[in-house]
């Protein structure tokens, strides 16, 4: 085992390779931690439906509350579609913002009552306020799945041609409305 017969210089790289691989991996982990620290949620699944036509749907209304919610009827106006449920805790935290938006009259908001008992949905709206123009029921997630919804609340901004232009995963904050959604609506209305 004399050192003189050690591998010649030219063959040094195989011994450096593990270090290189580990450094590259470390870099990836570091970037990921930074992303998470900057507020990126690793559980978030980005929608693949952005800039594609929204799925077509025809949802029955809540009992004695206006018309059915049909994708056809939404053509021609810019609208927000909010997927929500009375069972959903996060939806409650979002609700004041939706009421605010509805009051501003900038855009009409339609609700999809997802996997919910219609009586509970109505009770919830009576209790917490009703920002929706139309509400359609989606008890078996058919439309929610068509929208690629993972967890409520999720909100989609749809333009006049029925194309999805923006998706909010999780509650809309006042900031989101002011800085992202409102300017986009103005742009889409031009």
């Amino acid at each position, binding site marked *: 085992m004399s050192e003189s017969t050690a591998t010649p210089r030219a063959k040094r790289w195989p*011994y450096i390779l593990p*270090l290189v691989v580990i450094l590259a*991996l470390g870099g990836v*982990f570091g970037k*990921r*931690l930074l992303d*998470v*620290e900057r507020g990126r949620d*690793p559980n978030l699944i980005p929608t693949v439906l952005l800039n594609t036509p929204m799925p077509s749907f025809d949802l029955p209304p809540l009992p004695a509350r206006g018309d059915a919610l049909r994708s056809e009827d939404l053509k021609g106006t810019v609208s927000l579609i909010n997927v929500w449920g009375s069972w959903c805790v996060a939806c409650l935290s979002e609700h004041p913002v939706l009421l605010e938006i509805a009051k501003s009259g900038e855009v009409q908001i339609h609700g999809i009552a997802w996997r919910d008992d219609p009586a509970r949905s109505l009770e919830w709206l009576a209790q917490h306020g009703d920002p929706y123009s139309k509400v359609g029921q989606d008890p078996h997630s058919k439309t929610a799945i068509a929208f690629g919804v993972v967890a409520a609340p999720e909100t989609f901004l749809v333009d006049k041609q029925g194309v999805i232009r923006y998706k909010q995963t999780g509650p809309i904050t006042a900031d989101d409305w002011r800085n992202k959604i409102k300017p986009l609506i103005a742009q889409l209305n031009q």
Partner: protein
Amino acid sequence: MFTEIGHFALALALAVALVQAVVPMVGAARHNNAWMAVARPAALVQLALVLTAFAALMHAYLVSDFSVVGVYENSHTAKPLIYKISGVWGNHEGSLVLWVTVLALFGAGVAAFGRNLPPSLKARALAVQAMISVGFIAFILFTSNPYLRLNPFPSEGRGLNPLLQDPGLAIHPPMLYLGYVGFSMAFSFAVAALIEGRVDAAWARWVRPWTLAAWTCLTAGIGLGSWWAYYTLGWGGWWYWDPVENSSFLPWLTGTALLHSAIVVEKREALKSWTILLAIITFSLSLLGTFLTRSGVLTSVHAFASDPTRGTFILVLLAIAIGGSLILYAIRAPHLDGGGLFAPISREGGLLINNLLLSTAAATVLLGTLYPLLVEVLADAKISVGPPYFNGVFLPLMTPLVIVMGIGPLMAWKRGDLGGALARLKVAAGAGVAMLLVSLLMNGTRLIDIGGAFGLAMAAYLAVATIMEWLGRVKPTRAGVWSRIAHLPRAAHGMTIAHLGMAVLIAGVSGAAAWKQERIQTLAPDQSVEIAGYTMTFKGVETVQGPNYEAGRGTIEASVNGVKIATMHPELRLYKQPPQQTTFTSIHTTFFADLYVAIGEAQGAEGAYVTRFYYQPLIPFLWYGVLMMAFGGLISLTDRRHRVGAPQRAAATIAVPQAAE
């Protein structure tokens, strides 16, 4: 009071570990024996302190001291004693205390039993081990303090997740930690050898028992975890390729490779730099697993509540430990290999192929586990890598491995006789082919049947080849069999048992994967369903009270041709604190197969319930196989060459056949 003592003991342990990390290392560099000798007492004191810290935490859980945050969050007075104990490591902070306890345990083990080690190697290895301790104790004290108090404190705790209230899962983490934290010793020895600039047969002999001990515990730990998943999760699966499962399986794969390559270093003085690399990688994968499960970088069903600050801390630890050792490796390793002589047909040739396949398998599992993360960070896309990928890529790698496992042990070191080995393998190959045909005849020839038959054939081949190899040593037809059995090294018996265990495990995996049957239906009382020749009759559900839960307890009778075989009682439990529902399955095992029963929710008012029946042929073999592998490791560990300790270095160097190129 005890809690503060524990906290203080851990802080002291940090100080002692610091001393142990620095003084012996400097002493070794300066050839100062007194400084090097500090390592031994320091390692023992460190263990005593860490054990005190652990005991203090245990005490808080045992007396349900809810003024301690961790106890409040994870325990409850109504919890049975065993789960008060297991609650200690059922959370992030407590499990880290277990982590450093195992770390100190292995260090103290080397300090206490490593009398034959050259002083400088021992001093350096213990110093490196202490550096790891420093990192992790600091991690606990600065980011994950388990001794934090609540003021004012609540009178009752929030309870442990009911899924974790299970005897199998109570002992699973300690076994697992003894395993993958235990690999730290191989790592420390590897780094010490790199610093010394020398690796030889004696080094391999010193490292082997510690690696073997860790491997044995890890095998048992993984087996326990898998068994737990099998009987609690309620649909009869046993392995999910979940990131957390993978992060304990990865060190197992490379650790297995390490055990085998260390033999080549020991016998042939070859594969040295590779063995060192494996030792580093194996523990690095343990560290990586710890990072992945606690940093929030990956998400998994088993992950601890994640926290980016902790993630950053562990990442820095990882960078220092892995990066540092690999830099050292890049500098020193090129000088370690003496251009070993390799005959393609030899024991070492077989072990080389074994290493190639095991490391490729490990790399594949690692790639699959990290790929979603890589794609997301580098390409901002989201993909999933699940069981279909792992099964599809991992299993093909295992096939040649099993073939080599049969051939390798039959060949001599240095100059194997492939013809002779193959001649001796005829019986094994014949057994494999016979098994294939019998299985195809009995079970049919759908694609899944062919897969299952192929698995069984591999198992039969490996079992027969392993037994033939053992018989070849024991020579049962000649006089003096018993003395030969007694004189055969324990390590040889250990190998035979472990390899047989692998064969048994393969049979279990194949049977369960190919011929599992299920019946899922709603049954009213006294209705019955047929599965695999059994008539399962549902007798209804009654309510029973457990220590901290209320359960709907079903009664199901299994009978064959009208003869009652078993009465089974699956439960649907509703725990009080935290309020959560779990299934408690009932399993009737026949040695060759399991009848597995779970009940779901009530359907309507007539006493009808959702019932799930599974017939899982050969799945018990999976557990027997794991037990045999762990037992083989244990037997090997009692080899007197490991106990008596290592030979003197001088003898070892003479023994090396020079193979200068």
